[in-house]
Protein backbone atom coordinates (compact mmCIF):
# COMPACT_ATOMS: atom_id res chain seq x y z
CA UNK A 1 0.00 0.00 0.00
CA UNK A 2 1.56 3.24 -1.11
CA UNK A 3 -1.04 5.67 0.18
CA UNK A 4 -1.65 5.77 3.97
CA UNK A 5 -5.07 7.32 3.41
CA UNK A 6 -6.12 4.17 1.52
CA UNK A 7 -5.14 2.03 4.53
CA UNK A 8 -7.30 4.19 6.78
CA UNK A 9 -10.30 3.97 4.46
CA UNK A 10 -9.82 0.22 4.04
CA UNK A 11 -9.74 -0.19 7.83
CA UNK A 12 -12.95 1.83 8.11
CA UNK A 13 -14.49 -0.33 5.41
CA UNK A 14 -13.65 -3.53 7.29
CA UNK A 15 -15.03 -2.00 10.50
CA UNK A 16 -18.28 -1.10 8.73
CA UNK A 17 -18.57 -4.68 7.40
CA UNK A 18 -18.23 -6.05 10.94
CA UNK A 19 -20.75 -3.53 12.27
CA UNK A 20 -23.30 -4.25 9.52
CA UNK A 21 -22.88 -8.03 9.24
CA UNK A 22 -25.98 -9.03 11.20
CA UNK A 23 -28.19 -6.07 10.35
CA UNK A 24 -31.46 -6.59 8.41
CA UNK A 25 -31.01 -10.38 8.22
CA UNK A 26 -29.26 -11.32 5.00
CA UNK A 27 -30.10 -7.91 3.47
CA UNK A 28 -26.93 -6.22 4.65
CA UNK A 29 -24.82 -9.18 3.59
CA UNK A 30 -25.91 -8.83 -0.05
CA UNK A 31 -24.66 -5.23 -0.04
CA UNK A 32 -21.44 -6.35 1.67
CA UNK A 33 -20.87 -9.06 -0.94
CA UNK A 34 -21.48 -6.63 -3.81
CA UNK A 35 -19.18 -3.91 -2.43
CA UNK A 36 -16.48 -6.39 -1.44
CA UNK A 37 -16.54 -7.99 -4.90
CA UNK A 38 -16.06 -4.56 -6.53
CA UNK A 39 -13.29 -3.70 -4.08
CA UNK A 40 -11.50 -7.03 -4.54
CA UNK A 41 -11.45 -6.63 -8.32
CA UNK A 42 -10.11 -3.08 -7.90
CA UNK A 43 -7.41 -4.17 -5.47
CA UNK A 44 -6.36 -7.13 -7.64
CA UNK A 45 -5.95 -4.79 -10.61
CA UNK A 46 -3.99 -2.36 -8.45
CA UNK A 47 -1.73 -4.52 -6.32
CA UNK A 48 -1.51 -8.02 -7.73
CA UNK A 49 -0.46 -6.64 -11.10
CA UNK A 50 1.96 -4.02 -9.78
CA UNK A 51 3.15 -2.32 -12.95
CA UNK A 52 1.66 1.14 -12.60
CA UNK A 53 -0.27 2.94 -9.93
CA UNK A 54 -3.80 3.72 -11.10
CA UNK A 55 -6.58 1.36 -12.16
CA UNK A 56 -7.08 3.36 -15.35
CA UNK A 57 -3.46 2.91 -16.42
CA UNK A 58 -3.53 -0.86 -15.82
CA UNK A 59 -6.71 -1.61 -17.74
CA UNK A 60 -7.82 -1.34 -21.35
CA UNK A 61 -9.82 1.77 -20.37
CA UNK A 62 -6.74 3.91 -21.03
CA UNK A 63 -6.45 2.63 -24.61
CA UNK A 64 -10.17 3.20 -25.25
CA UNK A 65 -9.88 6.71 -23.79
CA UNK A 66 -6.90 7.58 -25.98
CA UNK A 67 -8.55 6.14 -29.10
CA UNK A 68 -11.73 8.14 -28.43
CA UNK A 69 -9.72 11.30 -27.79
CA UNK A 70 -7.75 10.91 -31.01
CA UNK A 71 -10.97 10.31 -32.96
CA UNK A 72 -12.69 13.32 -31.45
CA UNK A 73 -9.75 15.67 -31.91
CA UNK A 74 -8.62 14.28 -35.25
Amino acid at each position, binding site marked *: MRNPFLIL*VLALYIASIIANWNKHGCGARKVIYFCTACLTIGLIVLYIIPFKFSIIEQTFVLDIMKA*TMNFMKG
Partner: protein
Amino acid sequence: MKDKMTISTLQLAMLICTFLAISSQASLPMALAGSAKQDAWFSYFIPILYGCGAGMFFYKLAHKFPGLNMYEITNSVCGKFVGGLLNALFILYFIVDLSAQTRLFSDFFSSSILLRTPPELIIMMITLLIIYYSSGTMEHLARTNVIFILSYSIILLFLPIILLNEIDLNKLEPVLSSGFIPPLKSSILAAAAFGDVLAIGAFLHHVKGPRDIYMAMKLGVMVSSFLLTVWNFCLISVVSPVFVSRLIFTGWILVQQIHVTDFLDRVDLMVFSLFMPLILIKHAVLFIAILTGLASYTKKGRNFGNLMVGLLIMLFSIAAFDNTNEVIMFNNYGMIPLTLLVHIVFFGCLSVGISISKWTGRTKTSPGVNIGLFGGLARAMLVGCGASIAFGAYFGSKLGWYGTVSAGLFIMFLLLCMYFTFRQYGETILNKG
Protein backbone atom coordinates in the same frame (compact mmCIF):
# COMPACT_ATOMS: atom_id res chain seq x y z
CA MET B 1 -38.85 -0.52 1.82
CA LYS B 2 -39.00 2.49 -0.50
CA ASP B 3 -38.86 6.16 0.31
CA LYS B 4 -42.44 7.20 -0.54
CA MET B 5 -41.95 10.99 -0.55
CA THR B 6 -43.31 12.68 -3.66
CA ILE B 7 -41.57 15.54 -5.45
CA SER B 8 -43.25 17.99 -7.80
CA THR B 9 -42.63 18.27 -11.53
CA LEU B 10 -40.78 21.56 -11.15
CA GLN B 11 -38.57 20.16 -8.37
CA LEU B 12 -37.67 17.19 -10.56
CA ALA B 13 -36.99 19.48 -13.53
CA MET B 14 -34.64 21.55 -11.37
CA LEU B 15 -32.95 18.41 -10.09
CA ILE B 16 -32.36 17.33 -13.70
CA CYS B 17 -31.03 20.80 -14.43
CA THR B 18 -28.52 20.46 -11.58
CA PHE B 19 -27.68 16.99 -12.77
CA LEU B 20 -26.87 18.02 -16.32
CA ALA B 21 -25.87 21.65 -16.36
CA ILE B 22 -23.51 21.91 -13.42
CA SER B 23 -21.08 19.03 -13.84
CA SER B 24 -20.61 19.78 -17.56
CA GLN B 25 -19.18 23.21 -16.77
CA ALA B 26 -15.88 22.21 -15.25
CA SER B 27 -13.80 20.25 -17.74
CA LEU B 28 -16.11 19.40 -20.64
CA PRO B 29 -15.68 22.77 -22.47
CA MET B 30 -12.02 21.81 -22.98
CA ALA B 31 -13.04 18.68 -24.90
CA LEU B 32 -15.81 20.49 -26.80
CA ALA B 33 -13.44 23.26 -27.91
CA GLY B 34 -10.83 20.62 -28.77
CA SER B 35 -13.30 19.01 -31.19
CA ALA B 36 -15.30 21.92 -32.59
CA LYS B 37 -13.02 24.92 -31.79
CA GLN B 38 -15.06 28.16 -32.06
CA ASP B 39 -18.27 26.21 -32.83
CA ALA B 40 -18.27 24.42 -29.46
CA TRP B 41 -21.29 26.39 -28.29
CA PHE B 42 -23.49 24.62 -30.90
CA SER B 43 -22.85 21.30 -29.11
CA TYR B 44 -26.08 21.07 -27.16
CA PHE B 45 -28.58 20.41 -29.94
CA ILE B 46 -28.14 16.60 -30.06
CA PRO B 47 -28.13 16.32 -26.21
CA ILE B 48 -31.59 17.97 -26.22
CA LEU B 49 -32.86 15.25 -28.57
CA TYR B 50 -31.22 12.57 -26.43
CA GLY B 51 -32.70 13.99 -23.20
CA CYS B 52 -36.21 14.22 -24.70
CA GLY B 53 -35.84 10.62 -25.96
CA ALA B 54 -34.84 9.47 -22.46
CA GLY B 55 -37.84 11.39 -21.07
CA MET B 56 -40.16 9.61 -23.50
CA PHE B 57 -38.68 6.24 -22.46
CA PHE B 58 -39.28 7.04 -18.78
CA TYR B 59 -42.82 8.17 -19.65
CA LYS B 60 -43.55 4.80 -21.24
CA LEU B 61 -41.98 2.90 -18.34
CA ALA B 62 -43.90 4.92 -15.74
CA HIS B 63 -47.14 4.44 -17.65
CA LYS B 64 -46.76 0.67 -17.91
CA PHE B 65 -45.44 0.19 -14.38
CA PRO B 66 -46.86 2.96 -12.16
CA GLY B 67 -45.31 3.40 -8.71
CA LEU B 68 -42.16 1.42 -9.54
CA ASN B 69 -38.62 2.66 -10.06
CA MET B 70 -36.35 1.55 -12.90
CA TYR B 71 -34.67 -1.24 -10.92
CA GLU B 72 -38.00 -2.78 -9.95
CA ILE B 73 -39.27 -2.42 -13.52
CA THR B 74 -36.18 -4.27 -14.78
CA ASN B 75 -36.74 -7.05 -12.26
CA SER B 76 -40.39 -7.42 -13.21
CA VAL B 77 -39.76 -7.28 -16.98
CA CYS B 78 -36.58 -9.33 -17.34
CA GLY B 79 -36.98 -11.70 -14.40
CA LYS B 80 -34.94 -11.99 -11.24
CA PHE B 81 -31.70 -13.28 -12.77
CA VAL B 82 -31.35 -11.19 -15.95
CA GLY B 83 -32.93 -8.19 -14.22
CA GLY B 84 -30.46 -8.57 -11.34
CA LEU B 85 -27.53 -8.63 -13.76
CA LEU B 86 -28.80 -5.54 -15.59
CA ASN B 87 -29.29 -3.70 -12.32
CA ALA B 88 -25.74 -4.66 -11.28
CA LEU B 89 -24.44 -3.21 -14.56
CA PHE B 90 -26.32 0.00 -13.93
CA ILE B 91 -25.08 0.25 -10.34
CA LEU B 92 -21.48 -0.31 -11.47
CA TYR B 93 -21.89 2.42 -14.09
CA PHE B 94 -23.09 4.85 -11.44
CA ILE B 95 -20.24 3.84 -9.09
CA VAL B 96 -17.68 4.50 -11.84
CA ASP B 97 -19.35 7.79 -12.76
CA LEU B 98 -19.59 8.98 -9.16
CA SER B 99 -15.98 8.00 -8.37
CA ALA B 100 -14.69 9.83 -11.45
CA GLN B 101 -16.77 12.93 -10.73
CA THR B 102 -15.78 13.01 -7.07
CA ARG B 103 -12.14 12.87 -8.06
CA LEU B 104 -12.64 15.48 -10.80
CA PHE B 105 -14.17 18.02 -8.44
CA SER B 106 -11.71 17.30 -5.64
CA ASP B 107 -8.90 18.00 -8.12
CA PHE B 108 -10.72 21.11 -9.28
CA PHE B 109 -11.07 22.49 -5.76
CA SER B 110 -7.56 21.53 -4.74
CA SER B 111 -6.14 23.31 -7.79
CA SER B 112 -8.33 26.43 -7.63
CA ILE B 113 -9.51 27.35 -4.14
CA LEU B 114 -8.14 24.91 -1.56
CA LEU B 115 -4.56 24.93 -2.79
CA ARG B 116 -2.88 23.47 0.27
CA THR B 117 -5.54 20.91 1.21
CA PRO B 118 -4.66 17.32 0.19
CA PRO B 119 -7.11 15.98 -2.46
CA GLU B 120 -7.73 12.89 -0.30
CA LEU B 121 -9.22 15.07 2.43
CA ILE B 122 -11.47 16.85 -0.08
CA ILE B 123 -12.65 13.46 -1.37
CA MET B 124 -13.31 12.38 2.21
CA MET B 125 -15.34 15.51 2.97
CA ILE B 126 -17.38 15.14 -0.24
CA THR B 127 -18.08 11.47 0.47
CA LEU B 128 -19.00 12.07 4.12
CA LEU B 129 -21.38 14.82 3.03
CA ILE B 130 -23.11 12.63 0.45
CA ILE B 131 -23.36 9.80 2.99
CA TYR B 132 -25.06 12.25 5.36
CA TYR B 133 -27.37 13.55 2.64
CA SER B 134 -28.36 10.05 1.57
CA SER B 135 -29.67 9.29 5.07
CA GLY B 136 -32.48 11.80 4.39
CA THR B 137 -35.19 11.61 1.75
CA MET B 138 -35.31 12.77 -1.86
CA GLU B 139 -37.65 15.58 -0.86
CA HIS B 140 -34.92 17.14 1.30
CA LEU B 141 -32.53 17.06 -1.64
CA ALA B 142 -35.10 18.45 -4.07
CA ARG B 143 -36.01 21.34 -1.74
CA THR B 144 -32.37 22.20 -1.06
CA ASN B 145 -31.67 22.07 -4.77
CA VAL B 146 -34.45 24.56 -5.63
CA ILE B 147 -32.78 27.33 -3.60
CA PHE B 148 -29.33 26.89 -5.07
CA ILE B 149 -30.18 26.15 -8.70
CA LEU B 150 -32.47 29.19 -8.98
CA SER B 151 -29.75 31.54 -7.72
CA TYR B 152 -27.09 29.89 -9.87
CA SER B 153 -29.27 29.93 -13.01
CA ILE B 154 -29.92 33.65 -12.57
CA ILE B 155 -26.16 34.28 -12.42
CA LEU B 156 -25.59 32.11 -15.50
CA LEU B 157 -28.34 33.87 -17.44
CA PHE B 158 -26.85 37.26 -16.63
CA LEU B 159 -23.35 36.09 -17.49
CA PRO B 160 -23.33 37.60 -21.04
CA ILE B 161 -24.38 40.95 -19.52
CA ILE B 162 -21.88 41.03 -16.65
CA LEU B 163 -19.13 39.91 -19.02
CA LEU B 164 -20.15 42.41 -21.70
CA ASN B 165 -16.87 44.33 -21.52
CA GLU B 166 -14.87 41.11 -22.00
CA ILE B 167 -16.87 39.50 -24.81
CA ASP B 168 -15.23 39.65 -28.22
CA LEU B 169 -17.53 38.32 -30.94
CA ASN B 170 -14.62 38.06 -33.39
CA LYS B 171 -13.45 35.03 -31.40
CA LEU B 172 -16.59 33.16 -32.54
CA GLU B 173 -15.78 33.62 -36.22
CA PRO B 174 -15.72 32.00 -38.73
CA VAL B 175 -19.00 30.40 -37.65
CA LEU B 176 -19.59 26.76 -38.71
CA SER B 177 -17.00 27.06 -41.45
CA SER B 178 -15.51 23.58 -40.95
CA GLY B 179 -18.63 21.64 -41.93
CA PHE B 180 -20.79 19.08 -40.14
CA ILE B 181 -18.19 16.83 -38.56
CA PRO B 182 -16.62 19.03 -35.81
CA PRO B 183 -19.97 20.16 -34.27
CA LEU B 184 -21.23 16.57 -34.56
CA LYS B 185 -18.21 15.23 -32.66
CA SER B 186 -18.57 17.82 -29.91
CA SER B 187 -22.31 17.02 -29.73
CA ILE B 188 -21.47 13.35 -29.13
CA LEU B 189 -19.16 14.38 -26.28
CA ALA B 190 -21.90 16.57 -24.79
CA ALA B 191 -24.54 13.84 -25.19
CA ALA B 192 -22.27 11.34 -23.41
CA ALA B 193 -21.99 13.79 -20.52
CA PHE B 194 -25.81 13.79 -20.37
CA GLY B 195 -25.79 9.97 -20.12
CA ASP B 196 -25.95 9.81 -16.34
CA VAL B 197 -29.40 11.44 -16.43
CA LEU B 198 -30.58 7.83 -16.39
CA ALA B 199 -30.04 7.93 -12.62
CA ILE B 200 -33.34 9.83 -12.54
CA GLY B 201 -34.94 6.47 -13.41
CA ALA B 202 -34.25 5.40 -9.82
CA PHE B 203 -36.72 8.07 -8.66
CA LEU B 204 -39.63 7.43 -11.01
CA HIS B 205 -41.82 6.40 -8.06
CA HIS B 206 -41.36 9.82 -6.42
CA VAL B 207 -43.28 11.66 -9.14
CA LYS B 208 -47.08 11.63 -9.42
CA GLY B 209 -47.66 10.50 -12.98
CA PRO B 210 -45.94 9.63 -16.27
CA ARG B 211 -46.92 12.97 -17.83
CA ASP B 212 -45.13 14.81 -15.02
CA ILE B 213 -41.98 12.74 -15.55
CA TYR B 214 -41.89 13.50 -19.28
CA MET B 215 -42.50 17.20 -18.74
CA ALA B 216 -39.86 17.41 -15.99
CA MET B 217 -37.32 15.68 -18.19
CA LYS B 218 -38.07 17.90 -21.17
CA LEU B 219 -38.00 21.11 -19.15
CA GLY B 220 -34.84 20.08 -17.26
CA VAL B 221 -32.99 19.09 -20.42
CA MET B 222 -34.05 22.26 -22.27
CA VAL B 223 -33.02 24.60 -19.46
CA SER B 224 -29.72 22.73 -18.91
CA SER B 225 -28.87 22.83 -22.61
CA PHE B 226 -29.69 26.51 -22.79
CA LEU B 227 -27.55 27.32 -19.72
CA LEU B 228 -24.66 25.27 -21.10
CA THR B 229 -24.97 26.97 -24.49
CA VAL B 230 -24.74 30.36 -22.74
CA TRP B 231 -21.78 29.12 -20.67
CA ASN B 232 -19.87 27.84 -23.71
CA PHE B 233 -20.73 30.97 -25.71
CA CYS B 234 -19.21 33.12 -22.95
CA LEU B 235 -16.17 30.86 -22.64
CA ILE B 236 -15.39 30.95 -26.35
CA SER B 237 -16.05 34.65 -26.78
CA VAL B 238 -14.17 35.73 -23.64
CA VAL B 239 -11.32 33.25 -23.20
CA SER B 240 -10.94 32.29 -26.92
CA PRO B 241 -11.28 28.78 -28.42
CA VAL B 242 -7.51 28.08 -28.38
CA PHE B 243 -7.19 28.72 -24.64
CA VAL B 244 -10.42 26.85 -23.82
CA SER B 245 -9.18 23.76 -25.68
CA ARG B 246 -5.88 23.81 -23.75
CA LEU B 247 -6.81 24.89 -20.22
CA ILE B 248 -8.22 22.26 -17.88
CA PHE B 249 -10.65 24.22 -15.69
CA THR B 250 -11.61 27.14 -17.91
CA GLY B 251 -14.77 27.92 -15.95
CA TRP B 252 -12.60 29.20 -13.11
CA ILE B 253 -10.87 31.61 -15.49
CA LEU B 254 -14.16 32.78 -16.98
CA VAL B 255 -15.70 33.76 -13.64
CA GLN B 256 -12.47 35.48 -12.65
CA GLN B 257 -13.00 37.81 -15.62
CA ILE B 258 -16.15 39.22 -14.01
CA HIS B 259 -15.35 42.72 -12.75
CA VAL B 260 -18.62 44.49 -12.04
CA THR B 261 -17.06 47.32 -10.00
CA ASP B 262 -13.88 47.71 -7.96
CA PHE B 263 -15.86 46.69 -4.89
CA LEU B 264 -17.30 43.58 -6.57
CA ASP B 265 -14.02 42.22 -7.84
CA ARG B 266 -14.27 38.69 -6.41
CA VAL B 267 -17.60 37.59 -7.90
CA ASP B 268 -15.94 34.21 -8.51
CA LEU B 269 -16.13 33.42 -4.78
CA MET B 270 -19.89 34.01 -4.80
CA VAL B 271 -20.32 31.89 -7.96
CA PHE B 272 -18.34 29.01 -6.52
CA SER B 273 -20.13 29.14 -3.19
CA LEU B 274 -23.29 28.34 -5.20
CA PHE B 275 -21.53 25.89 -7.51
CA MET B 276 -20.16 23.64 -4.76
CA PRO B 277 -23.53 22.77 -3.10
CA LEU B 278 -25.00 21.97 -6.52
CA ILE B 279 -22.13 19.59 -7.25
CA LEU B 280 -22.72 17.93 -3.88
CA ILE B 281 -26.42 17.61 -4.67
CA LYS B 282 -25.60 15.91 -7.96
CA HIS B 283 -23.25 13.50 -6.20
CA ALA B 284 -25.89 12.81 -3.55
CA VAL B 285 -28.49 12.01 -6.24
CA LEU B 286 -26.08 9.58 -7.93
CA PHE B 287 -25.28 8.06 -4.54
CA ILE B 288 -28.97 7.60 -3.69
CA ALA B 289 -29.49 6.01 -7.13
CA ILE B 290 -26.75 3.47 -6.25
CA LEU B 291 -28.28 2.78 -2.83
CA THR B 292 -31.78 2.42 -4.32
CA GLY B 293 -30.36 -0.11 -6.79
CA LEU B 294 -28.76 -2.10 -3.98
CA ALA B 295 -32.01 -1.93 -2.02
CA SER B 296 -33.75 -3.63 -4.97
CA TYR B 297 -31.69 -6.75 -4.13
CA THR B 298 -32.14 -6.65 -0.39
CA LYS B 299 -35.83 -5.53 -0.34
CA LYS B 300 -34.97 -3.47 2.76
CA GLY B 301 -34.40 0.23 3.40
CA ARG B 302 -31.53 1.84 1.50
CA ASN B 303 -29.84 3.58 4.42
CA PHE B 304 -27.90 0.79 6.09
CA GLY B 305 -25.49 0.34 3.16
CA ASN B 306 -24.56 3.98 2.75
CA LEU B 307 -21.34 3.94 4.80
CA MET B 308 -19.93 0.89 2.99
CA VAL B 309 -20.78 2.21 -0.47
CA GLY B 310 -19.43 5.64 0.49
CA LEU B 311 -16.11 4.14 1.59
CA LEU B 312 -15.98 2.10 -1.62
CA ILE B 313 -16.41 5.26 -3.68
CA MET B 314 -13.77 7.02 -1.58
CA LEU B 315 -11.32 4.18 -2.29
CA PHE B 316 -12.08 4.11 -6.01
CA SER B 317 -11.79 7.90 -6.32
CA ILE B 318 -8.30 7.80 -4.88
CA ALA B 319 -6.98 4.57 -6.39
CA ALA B 320 -8.50 4.68 -9.87
CA PHE B 321 -6.67 7.77 -11.13
CA ASP B 322 -3.07 8.75 -10.92
CA ASN B 323 -3.25 12.44 -11.80
CA THR B 324 -5.62 15.20 -12.90
CA ASN B 325 -4.93 14.58 -16.58
CA GLU B 326 -6.22 11.00 -16.30
CA VAL B 327 -9.37 12.15 -14.50
CA ILE B 328 -10.10 14.79 -17.12
CA MET B 329 -9.48 12.36 -19.98
CA PHE B 330 -11.70 9.74 -18.38
CA ASN B 331 -14.55 12.18 -17.73
CA ASN B 332 -14.35 13.76 -21.17
CA TYR B 333 -13.57 10.80 -23.41
CA GLY B 334 -13.64 7.56 -21.38
CA MET B 335 -17.30 7.94 -20.45
CA ILE B 336 -18.45 7.84 -24.11
CA PRO B 337 -17.86 4.11 -24.78
CA LEU B 338 -18.98 3.24 -21.26
CA THR B 339 -22.23 5.19 -21.57
CA LEU B 340 -22.87 3.75 -25.02
CA LEU B 341 -22.31 0.18 -23.78
CA VAL B 342 -24.61 0.63 -20.78
CA HIS B 343 -27.32 2.22 -22.92
CA ILE B 344 -27.20 -0.50 -25.56
CA VAL B 345 -27.22 -3.40 -23.07
CA PHE B 346 -29.68 -1.98 -20.57
CA PHE B 347 -32.22 -0.44 -22.90
CA GLY B 348 -31.87 -3.24 -25.45
CA CYS B 349 -32.71 -5.89 -22.83
CA LEU B 350 -35.47 -3.75 -21.32
CA SER B 351 -37.09 -3.06 -24.72
CA VAL B 352 -36.95 -6.75 -25.65
CA GLY B 353 -38.47 -7.67 -22.27
CA ILE B 354 -41.26 -5.11 -22.66
CA SER B 355 -41.99 -6.27 -26.23
CA ILE B 356 -42.23 -9.91 -25.07
CA SER B 357 -44.49 -9.00 -22.14
CA LYS B 358 -46.68 -6.90 -24.48
CA TRP B 359 -46.85 -9.82 -26.90
CA THR B 360 -47.89 -12.19 -24.12
CA GLY B 361 -50.40 -9.60 -22.88
CA ARG B 362 -48.78 -8.92 -19.49
CA THR B 363 -48.58 -5.15 -19.94
CA LYS B 364 -50.86 -2.60 -21.50
CA THR B 365 -49.90 -0.36 -24.43
CA SER B 366 -49.06 3.20 -23.42
CA PRO B 367 -50.58 6.08 -25.37
CA GLY B 368 -48.40 8.78 -26.94
CA VAL B 369 -47.78 11.96 -24.97
CA ASN B 370 -50.47 14.60 -25.56
CA ILE B 371 -48.08 17.43 -26.44
CA GLY B 372 -50.67 20.19 -26.99
CA LEU B 373 -50.23 23.35 -29.08
CA PHE B 374 -47.11 24.63 -27.31
CA GLY B 375 -45.45 21.22 -27.33
CA GLY B 376 -45.85 21.13 -31.12
CA LEU B 377 -44.44 24.63 -31.44
CA ALA B 378 -41.48 23.70 -29.20
CA ARG B 379 -40.76 20.73 -31.46
CA ALA B 380 -40.98 22.98 -34.53
CA MET B 381 -38.46 25.37 -32.96
CA LEU B 382 -36.18 22.43 -32.20
CA VAL B 383 -36.34 21.43 -35.86
CA GLY B 384 -35.48 25.07 -36.65
CA CYS B 385 -32.37 24.83 -34.40
CA GLY B 386 -31.25 21.71 -36.27
CA ALA B 387 -31.98 23.29 -39.65
CA SER B 388 -30.03 26.44 -38.82
CA ILE B 389 -26.97 24.38 -37.78
CA ALA B 390 -27.29 22.29 -40.95
CA PHE B 391 -27.61 25.43 -43.09
CA GLY B 392 -24.56 27.03 -41.46
CA ALA B 393 -22.48 23.87 -41.67
CA TYR B 394 -23.32 23.43 -45.36
CA PHE B 395 -23.00 27.03 -46.55
CA GLY B 396 -20.73 28.50 -43.81
CA SER B 397 -17.55 27.45 -45.60
CA LYS B 398 -18.67 29.22 -48.80
CA LEU B 399 -19.43 32.65 -47.34
CA GLY B 400 -18.84 33.85 -43.77
CA TRP B 401 -22.17 35.69 -43.61
CA TYR B 402 -24.14 32.47 -43.99
CA GLY B 403 -22.53 31.11 -40.83
CA THR B 404 -23.25 34.32 -38.91
CA VAL B 405 -26.90 34.28 -40.04
CA SER B 406 -27.27 30.63 -39.05
CA ALA B 407 -25.81 31.39 -35.57
CA GLY B 408 -28.38 34.18 -35.15
CA LEU B 409 -31.18 31.86 -36.26
CA PHE B 410 -29.94 29.15 -33.88
CA ILE B 411 -30.07 31.55 -30.90
CA MET B 412 -33.54 32.75 -31.92
CA PHE B 413 -34.94 29.21 -32.34
CA LEU B 414 -33.36 28.06 -29.05
CA LEU B 415 -34.91 30.98 -27.15
CA LEU B 416 -38.30 30.31 -28.77
CA CYS B 417 -38.00 26.60 -27.98
CA MET B 418 -37.34 27.47 -24.32
CA TYR B 419 -40.34 29.80 -24.28
CA PHE B 420 -42.70 27.24 -25.81
CA THR B 421 -41.44 24.50 -23.48
CA PHE B 422 -42.29 26.71 -20.49
CA ARG B 423 -45.71 27.40 -22.04
CA GLN B 424 -46.19 23.65 -22.56
CA TYR B 425 -45.28 23.08 -18.91
CA GLY B 426 -47.90 25.68 -17.91
CA GLU B 427 -50.45 24.14 -20.25
CA THR B 428 -50.00 20.49 -19.23
CA ILE B 429 -48.99 20.63 -15.57
CA LEU B 430 -50.03 23.92 -13.99
CA ASN B 431 -53.44 24.34 -15.64
CA LYS B 432 -54.55 20.71 -15.46
CA GLY B 433 -53.23 20.14 -11.92
